[in-house]
């Protein structure tokens, strides 16, 4: 059901973990629906210097989290905000129809983390 690339990202996910004093943190999903994604951003000069994630969820949730972190690392905030779930899915070589909703979570997690960063900036 999963492509080899999804399985590769599931088995060896990149950027798993936490960033202690992250500049932005976003968490989306809920335990009830079986998927939770938390994303940590380290941002310097508008550039995403580092990104880590933690995911409770299925294979697709883990793989999309991982892929999404790779796609935004080193990018500007504006670039990162343009990443859509479709882009993540296509980088992974596709997902089963019933798993597309997991990729939406990755997109949302990025946005939530950036939003958190921005609101912190404003509060500074």
């Amino acid at each position, binding site marked *: 059901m999963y492509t080899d690339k999804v399985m590769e990202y599931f088995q060896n996910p990149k950027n798993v973990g936490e960033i202690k004093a992250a500049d932005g943190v976003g968490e989306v999903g809920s335990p*009830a629906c079986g998927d939770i994604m938390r994303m940590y951003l380290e941002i310097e000069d508008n550039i995403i210097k580092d990104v880590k994630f933690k995911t409770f969820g299925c*294979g697709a949730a883990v793989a999309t989290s991982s892929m999404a972190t790779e796609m935004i690392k080193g990018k500007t905030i504006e670039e990162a905000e343009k990443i859509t779930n479709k882009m993540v899915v296509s980088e992974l070589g596709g997902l089963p129809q019933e798993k597309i909703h997991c990729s939406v979570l990755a997109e949302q997690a990025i946005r939530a983390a950036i939003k958190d960063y921005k609101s912190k900036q404003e509060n500074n």
Partner: protein
Amino acid sequence: MKRVYFDYAATTPLDKEVLEKMIPYFSEKFGNPSSIYSEGREARKVIDEARQKVANSINANANEIFFTGGGTEADNWALKGVAFANKNKGNHIITTVIEHHAVLHTCEYLEKHGFEVTYLKVDEYGLIDIEELKTLIKDTTILISIMFANNEIGTVQPIKEIGQIAKEKNIYFHTDAVQALGNVPIDVRDLKVDLLSISAHKIYGPKGIGALYVRKGVKVDNLVHGGAQERKKRAGTENTPAVVGFGEACYLAVTDLLKRNQKTEELRDYLIKSILSTVPNVQLNGHPTKRLPGNANISFEFIEGESLLLSLDLVGISASSGSACTSGSLDPSHVLLAIGLIHEIAHGSLRVTLGKNTNKEEIDYLLEQLPPIVQRLRDMSPLYIQGGK
């Protein structure tokens, strides 16, 4: 990589012995059993013999056994057949919240067609309350359908007591015994069951065949209309090789049952004990003793089932989970929710079901592989905080 299969409750490999018996009926003795010439008569004869074997396995008479296309069809037939044939007597059906979807979705269908269905709840072990059942019976109750043993958590219901009550109240009693056959001794007379569903592929028989036991005298409408097969009760050209295989599988399933169960239970208990004692934040689902001999269902906190299954698969282990993700829905198993598990615990459940050839080496391999995988997934989980919640 060597693979270890731990999903015998999902389906079993066809027994080689059984396949041997089926082979002649595919291409050589392929005649239509409804035909009167020699090829047909030969097929008719082996079908009759197989029917007797199936009947013997549950202590029924051969003429109370009707072959179907599987356990699902048998469940559909039992419920719809009894409901529509007896609607002049009442429109109320009692079942449980933990039935297989073959029963639950059939009940939903019946609700749309004028029947009233009461869903008995279960306790934390998955057991129904006999007293509650009694209070739910009404004048309009025509059918009680309660599964013999649950496919997810393995809990075995007090079938004999239910049969007794149904009999006293003159209500038909159907039980889905798809998971029970070959794992629990079944005697339809002693249990006072009126209808009982079974399926071959769960007992090392072929896929695509099941049977409904219908006690003589029970009024049930047909589900599949057409030719005069199965004494005009279930139409469709008989699947001779599958019937032969089912007969043989039933025979093998009840031979040495208790001895086999003892071995299986020992292994299963060893598995459960080992996991519970080595992995923190786990819990056993289902009843500690009133459970199928080969069933272990364990929840691992903080992780999600599909990830666990995929990780096990990568080291050659096949198992199952009550997580919703596998089916594309959002809700985890209705059975796990029914026994009171919260969503995230239900999502993190693992069902390991043992088969007749499961051995200690296989269990030990699982016990070796499982803890690091659980740890790895927990490390990745935002719900997990080192040392517990």
